[in-house]
């Protein structure tokens, strides 16, 4: 499979497809049973595009991110189906050493808690140098480290510091510098600002946006925060219970959310500059993925549930610029006489 199909919703930049996930399913096996936190997820990221994956805890958004490089927080997790195409090459078929060369070099990750994934006994500079050496870019490493640190708004002297001597915001900047070290084409950021205070979050988001522009990066941003999505993303996937329920350009998503889950999420978002009465549009809580609901996984919480929703799985259907997986649209289209 080398030919990539035409992108169904072109990215803001209209660039080439950098990453494509096709029906990826990831399973975690434990003594308590099998769970599929990612269940048939397909998504694309184009060159120079910022793509958001948004969802609540347990939606599978982070596991989707981990599935790309098969870096999981638990050994029990494994991608069991689908394809992860990086510039047309399926990462799932690579041998471990080949995959290791992709990690950090072609695809880099930024994690939520920078302070805990930096090595506490190595200076910041040594860690970034290690990364360069691992990818045979050791020549001129010190100069490169200084350049990278300056690029993320730190002074080159930070290279001599240990992670515990830095603040949370500075650690995250180091994490970003280290992600950029080998000039990857794609950066995956998993909740990069969630652990930070709001003024620091704003600094880091602005930094990410600037670097993305300057380096023409493709950025896959995993977040639960719709404010962050609105701030930096071009296109958004909404995940619920391991599946994508909606995909849209960011402005369309906020202006006309199609899926009842997205609508409920947006109704629950509080806007600092536009106070309104709080309404809990979605009742209940996320389902247990050991035993996901039949049909549409959102149906037990959906305000518009129909008999069909509990038996048939709705496919993602493109309408306008938005794709969403909901039987309501079928009904609406049928009543208007428009073909789906």
């Amino acid at each position, binding site marked *: 499979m080398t030919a990539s199909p035409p992108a169904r919703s072109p990215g803001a930049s209209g660039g080439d497809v950098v990453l494509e996930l096709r029906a990826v399913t990831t399973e975690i096996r434990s003594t308590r049973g099998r769970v599929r936190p990612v269940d048939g997820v397909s998504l694309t990221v184009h060159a120079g595009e910022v793509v958001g994956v948004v969802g609540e805890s347990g939606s599978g958004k982070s596991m989707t991110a981990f599935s790309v490089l098969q870096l999981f927080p638990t050994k029990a997790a494994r991608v069991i189906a689908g394809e992860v195409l990086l510039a047309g090459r399926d990462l799932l078929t690579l041998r471990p050493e080949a995959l290791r060369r992709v990690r950090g070099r072609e695809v880099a990750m930024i994690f939520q808690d920078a302070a805990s994934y930096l090595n506490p006994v190595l200076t910041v500079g040594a860690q970034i140098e290690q990364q360069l050496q691992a990818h045979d870019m050791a020549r001129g490493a010190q100069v490169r480290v200084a350049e990278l640190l300056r690029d993320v708004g730190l002074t080159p002297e930070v290279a001599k510091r240990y992670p515990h001597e830095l603040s949370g915001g500075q650690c995250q900047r180091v994490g970003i510098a280290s992600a950029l070290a080998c000039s990857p084409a794609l950066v995956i950021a998993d909740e990069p600002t969630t652990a930070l205070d709001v003024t620091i979050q704003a600094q880091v988001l602005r930094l990410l946006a600037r670097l993305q522009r300057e380096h023409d990066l493709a950025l896959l941003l995993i977040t639960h925060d719709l404010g962050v999505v*609105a701030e930096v993303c071009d296109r958004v996937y909404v995940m619920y219970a391991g599946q994508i329920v909606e995909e849209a350009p960011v402005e369309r998503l906020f202006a006309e959310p199609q899926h009842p889950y997205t609508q409920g999420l947006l109704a629950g978002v509080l806007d600092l500059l536009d106070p309104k009465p709080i309404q809990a549009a*979605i009742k209940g*809580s996320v389902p247990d993925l050991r035993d996901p609901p039949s049909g549409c996984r959102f149906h037990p919480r959906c305000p518009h549930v129909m008999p069909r929703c509990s038996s048939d799985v709705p496919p993602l259907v493109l309408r306008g610029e938005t794709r969403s997986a909901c039987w309501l649209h079928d009904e609406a289209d049928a009543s208007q006489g428009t073909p789906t």
Partner: protein
Amino acid sequence: MSADAPIIATDALVKHFPTGRSLFGRRRVVQAVNGVDLHVSPGETLALVGESGCGKTTTARVVLGLERPTGGGLRYHGTPVEALDSEARARFRRRVQVVFQDSNASLNPRKTLREILTTALVVSGTIPSRARARLRERVAQLLDDVGLSPAASFLDRLPHELSGGQRQRVGIARALAPEPELVIADEPVSALDISVRAQVLELMARIQRERGVAFLLISHDLAVVRHVAARVAVMYLGRIIEEGPVDAVFGNPIHPYTAALVDATPLPDPRPEVRKRGHLDVSGDVPSPIDLPSGCAFHPRCPIAVAHCRETVPLLATPTGGADLGGHRVACHRADERVAGLELPITPSAGATAASQAPPTKESPA
């Protein structure tokens, strides 16, 4: 005790924590709370906002009596808490309750919801333990009140058998058990997902409406505060730097730190026309509360700081020269200028020109 006095009021509350000694044996302290005056009146919601380490949780713990203040005082209905007789002290303990952020850690994992709530009712002296029937009825009522219904299906569950949102409802039910007049809620929805957060906030709003309970809400989330509180106090490094009605404070922030917080809060709206903001970019990190900056603690990060700010601590006061500000108070040497509508340069690079307008000496920002 007077009837119209605030439920609780703090006077120049100070809380320092010793953290060992420096190299030459000088004792070092974390100045967590550094002179906080606040009050909560019956039925109102006051929010205390700020970033991590600003002292908001420590303030709440002192108000709850979980920490003894290093200085200053706490009054309950106008009477200093030290002067409360045992009966009044018991009433204070019963009528001021708390909801914690982490319902996982604050509920006993081995007790069923029935036991948790029964204990809350008995220990607070609300219902004696021998009144079995009344206890049963009240526990079921409490579960119902917080939306855990039918109560019968929840009574015998353990906390781990609940979702995060349901556990937080139990935390609220426990706080409501002794019929409090004030509930201190420390980041009650920070650990919750959006859809569940909306449910819990809706519940808190309903409780306030129906029972007239006052809330002291501790939060780092300005959007949550704007939606549930009437009044807000913004803390920075142990002091309140701006206080007033939420609409005034967030709609027209006077202190540059508040303005930066408002500006930094992500807006859930991608349209470019709404996204144009002042971009009051505050650089750097919050300094250590061990070595507080001199004068105004915010001056090293402040884009409009002048020399005076390094020398003198600004007091919380109503800015003069403006219209009626409705109780909006600010601790900033340049508040009057900002209120008077002076177009103060608010970018760091413009700090040098700002310095030249203000007394007493010129300086160039580092």
